């Protein structure tokens, strides 16, 4: 009888563990051989907030990032939603093979992690982690990140300085490509966010269809690795 009462008391005294505010380090590694990431946007945010939905059209904020590397509108969007945001942890481009680390907090209102950056040189390709649920147990977690196509610009693979919304073409190759004269792989704008089909390129430095070099600018997924340390 007394044992039963004690058992009940134990059951009543158990409370649900809540997610208290915690700190995480997010290290992002560029796994590609010849492609750069423009300023990264790293954020812990709500359960429901997402920067894009695969299969759906990209927002203008996402388009600005994917086509020209401009993360300002996405950062504003997240901040207004109550998210924790770190903009540009690498202070500029993240080169092939390089890594950078951002430190953020998670809490009950911001339990998920998202990361985006434009992949350069591409038309509107971006690397992303979307709404990853941050573990509550301390430790180190590794996630591979894929490349997505924003679907807002044709993948013509022409380097012409075009990075603004509505302007076709690739802004630049930070790796110093000297290829020119590409007439364009395609003029088709896909219309929705999807897994990037990669770079076709060619080996014609003065003509051909593409200004990207198939031997230098190609990649397969994953294009990045995120190592998250939950403290």
């Amino acid at each position, binding site marked *: 009888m007394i044992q039963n009462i004690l058992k009940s008391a134990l059951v009543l005294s158990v409370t649900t563990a809540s997610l208290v505010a915690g700190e995480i380090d997010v290290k992002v590694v560029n796994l590609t051989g010849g492609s750069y990431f423009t300023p990264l946007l790293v954020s812990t945010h709500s359960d429901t907030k997402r920067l894009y939905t695969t*299969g759906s059209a990209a927002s203008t904020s996402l388009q600005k990032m994917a086509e020209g590397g401009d993360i300002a509108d996405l950062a504003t969007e997240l901040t207004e939603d109550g998210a924790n945001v770190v903009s540009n942890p690498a202070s500029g481009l993240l080169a092939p093979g390089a890594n950078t680390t951002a430190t953020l907090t998670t809490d009950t209102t911001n339990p998920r992690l998202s990361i985006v950056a434009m992949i350069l040189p591409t038309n509107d390709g971006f690397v992303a982690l979307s709404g990853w649920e941050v573990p509550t147990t301390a430790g180190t977690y590794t996630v591979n990140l894929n490349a997505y196509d924003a679907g807002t610009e044709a993948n013509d693979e022409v380097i012409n300085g075009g990075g603004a919304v509505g302007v076709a073409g690739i802004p630049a190759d930070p790796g110093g490509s000297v290829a020119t004269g590409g007439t364009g792989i395609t003029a088709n704008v896909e219309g929705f966010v*999807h897994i990037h*089909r990669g770079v076709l390129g060619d080996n014609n430095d003065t003509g051909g269809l593409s200004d990207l070099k198939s031997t230098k600018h190609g990649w397969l997924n994953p294009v990045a690795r995120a190592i998250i340390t939950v403290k």
Partner: protein
Amino acid sequence: MKNLKLWSSIVTAGLLLTACGDSSSVNSYEVTVENLTYSQPLSPMVVSYHQQGENLFVAGEAVSVGFEKLAEGGDNSDLLLELNANTNVRASV
């Protein structure tokens, strides 16, 4: 691209409860598969619920004839027959 929602009803008696020697119970799972590509359709798929070690394929090893027919021609019927003949596996479309 389209989302496919798949129902599989699974009888777990033979799979998980042999140690308990208990009567069977049924669990249902809803599996949503999203095609992330731009324009690459996927042929009719196979979704399988199975014991650890009963993999559909092992990288580095040859696949079954049923699996080959699915991969080369999009025909999942023989793979489904193979899987459902295995008592450690339940498979469905």
